[in-house]
């Protein structure tokens, strides 16, 4: 492949740079232009480009499968049937092969090391010890939180009863994962529902936090990659997707500190091995269909 490839991603800067560098090492003829921003902003940008009838990117590497499901529903994505998906659980890629998960960013529990208990189960957060001490990202603003909510409510063992119990126990839902992590690391709250890499990476640097993969399993956003129907350079785009899903691509994800999506790739330091992490089942299309209803119900429960 060769030519110019335009990538929109919500990866952190350094990660995006590393990804692009590694891809270019393999595909020296491709020049990559990439734009990095928060999921909401990058989507707003993209939506505006759609509205103006001139979308710029060839490839998207963003956020979560629900967002991708939405784009697929709006018929914005191109199917890539050539790609090799061996080693990927079904559910980690679209059945029509329009999007493919590239890593697992799981949502679990973080606790401040000074907290009264170390939780092991989601239900621990509804215990009296945790009253008023739990904070979590709001599904109204965070994509990961919305996926988490959908996963929890799709799980018959937890469901909306669990969400209501959390609310009753004084849990707050604010902003995004960054805010939650800061609240727990800063000691304002004892427990938080948060994505894995933040506490694991910062704990390694000395931050007073501990991350727990609850026994019921975790939800995960999978940072899927997809090619736009309007891509100018589908060849390079396909090469990019293939690279991300390859062993090399997955090792790169692990090097950056994320759980690889492909089985058989060693997890990064600080993570338990891949088979010890249980993923709760998740249906992206259903989550998309339910998204507005879920948000509304959540808002009612948490008074937002």
């Amino acid at each position, binding site marked *: 492949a060769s030519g110019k490839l335009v990538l929109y991603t919500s990866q952190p800067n350094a990660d995006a740079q590393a990804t692009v560098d590694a891809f270019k090492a393999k595909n020296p003829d491709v020049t990559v232009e990439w734009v990095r*921003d*928060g999921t909401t902003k990058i989507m707003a940008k993209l939506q505006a480009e759609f509205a103006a009838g*001139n979308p710029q990117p060839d490839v998207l590497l963003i956020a979560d499968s629900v967002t991708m499901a939405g784009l697929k529903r709006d018929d914005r994505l191109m199917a890539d049937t050539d790609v090799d998906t061996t080693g990927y659980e079904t559910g980690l890629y679209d059945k029509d092969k329009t999007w493919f998960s590239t890593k697992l960013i799981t949502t679990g529990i973080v606790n401040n090391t000074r907290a009264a208990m170390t939780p092991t189960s989601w239900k621990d957060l509804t215990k009296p010890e945790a009253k008023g001490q739990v904070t979590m990202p709001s599904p109204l603003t965070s994509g990961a939180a919305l996926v988490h909510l959908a996963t929890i409510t799709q799980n018959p063992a937890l469901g909306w009863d669990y969400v209501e119990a959390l609310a009753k126990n004084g849990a707050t839902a604010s902003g995004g994962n960054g805010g939650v992590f800061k609240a727990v690391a800063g000691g304002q709250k004892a427990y938080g529902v948060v994505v894995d890499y933040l506490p694991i990476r910062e704990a390694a640097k000395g931050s007073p936090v501990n991350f727990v993969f609850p026994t019921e399993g975790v939800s995960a956003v999978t940072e899927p990659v997809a090619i736009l129907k309007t891509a100018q350079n589908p060849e390079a785009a396909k090469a990019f997707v293939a690279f991300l899903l390859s062993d090399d691509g997955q090792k790169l994800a692990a090097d950056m500190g994320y759980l690889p999506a492909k089985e058989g790739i060693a997890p990064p330091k600080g993570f338990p091995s891949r088979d010890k992490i249980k993923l709760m089942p998740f249906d992206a299309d259903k989550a998309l269909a339910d998204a507005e209803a879920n948000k509304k119900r959540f808002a009612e429960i948490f008074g937002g």
Partner: protein
Amino acid sequence: MPTRPLPTRRPTRSASPRSSAADKLIALSNRRPDGESLAFAVLVVFVLVVSILPMGRLLFEAIAPGGRLDAAPLLEVLTAPSTLTATVHSLVTALGGTAISLALGTLLALAVALTDMRGKAALVFAFLLPLMIPPQVTALSWAQLAGPSSPLLITLGLAPPLGAPNPLYSAEGIILLLGIQHAPLVFLAVRAGLRGLPREMIEAARACGAGRVFVLRTIILPMMTPSLVAGGALAFVSAIGNFGIPALLGIPAGYTVLPTLIYQRLASFGPSIISDVAVLSILVGALAFAGFAAQSLLIGRRDFRSVGAPSEALRYRLGKARLPVEIFAWAIIVLILVIPLIALIATSLVSAYGVPLSATTMTLGNYAEVLLRQDATVRAFRNSFLLAGGASLLLMLLAVPFAALIVWRGGRFLKSLAMLAEVPYALPGIVLGIAAILIFIRPLPILGFSLYNTIWIIFFAYLARFLTLSLRPVVGAVQQLDRGLDEAARMTGASYLFRLRTVLFPLLAPAAAAGAVLTFMTSFNELTVSALLWSAGNETLGVIVFNLDDGGFTVLASAVAVVTVVVIVAIMGATALFARKLPRGVLPWAN
């Protein structure tokens, strides 16, 4: 004989009868548009392009999503209960915040301009700095401060029990922080107005036996109405459009205002996001517009011109009250500047977020990382400096003639134009960004190239967004200016541009500079507009800070923010060195 329209060409009196050729030349020169009309045309086009065009584009998107006329989304959004709630919340917080800004800004402006308080320069300097600190940072540090784990409250024994709701996560909290954040806007406007207040106006009242408070209430404040209105309008519009503070304090409390509602809409997956958002932002624009309309009704046709040259600084002696007043003023500075700044600095000095700052954990590694290793930071400094400097300079140049036209030429057209020009400032930055994308993603007609993915689209958005910041203080100043000063220049035959340069600019310099400072400081670390519009190589400081923070590198983000503040302080300090060479009052912090 008395018709000698081209004095520049005939500097000395000539008795010779004028030739018919000269007559023709004169007739021609009469038909040729004069400088003022030219300026008028340029300004109208400018406002049309930078203000009306984006809003028009959004309006189009609202009523015709995807190009097909369809009022359904419009009605749906407007009639949604959440829209009504958010609108009411927006109004409540913006009005409350404006009240606090007005009180705080006016109080300090009066103290600085009218009393013999000490250390004015430093105070003004410190009072303006919070403009530099992103609202999110302020909100966060205050939230930390007021919460159960607040070190300050714990020390004072006032800390609420662990887990108790943070009092700042409420409408009141939002109002308080909005008020604090925008107080400098009011301060700068009122300060500039006070500089032009003729001394005799106050003296006449004092001679009537009026005490200080009475003079303040009946003379100074009423005469400051244009400035107060200007400052108040800015504060109101800023509050209406503010996202950072209600996002941090309102979302946890379930208190949604229009900008946060817009953000939530953007984070959803509906196919009509853009048109929904357009409708909501039109609502925001309408609120801001209503605000301006109310304000201009408030001033009405009243005349605030004062005859006579402004005199030297007024110095009310505070006497025994001096120390308490000084302490009070500095206490405010501690609250609005020192505390957030300390939080910011502390965060930037530790290796990881949440690590307590101590002699052993302190490190300069974050600074080394952002300054030495990440070249994007340095690039962002350069970009932001150029963007902010360019925008504030260009807008300052345009604001003076524009303000003079608005006030002196008047007319409904110009007044409406001026009000419309202010609306983009109230739009949430992300919406303005969307509008800019909608306009510029396609190649420009005729020119054939696209501004998209260049730094110029950010520049354009800055011009649209900050026009009002530059314009408002100048409009207030012109309203207080004796028109005779311009007329005296006209009769010398001075052309429009020459008058602009030699009379209007110097006379309005303090107000224009106040506007430019506001523009520079707020655009220097602007985030929400450039977040959508930046592209590789065109990062701005706000984008860098946000991306670092968003990626979990809060400590690095803090380091960049601290460096930003330091750079601004350095710039402000450096300009103070040249203060003597500039007309008095140009630099708000150089007395």
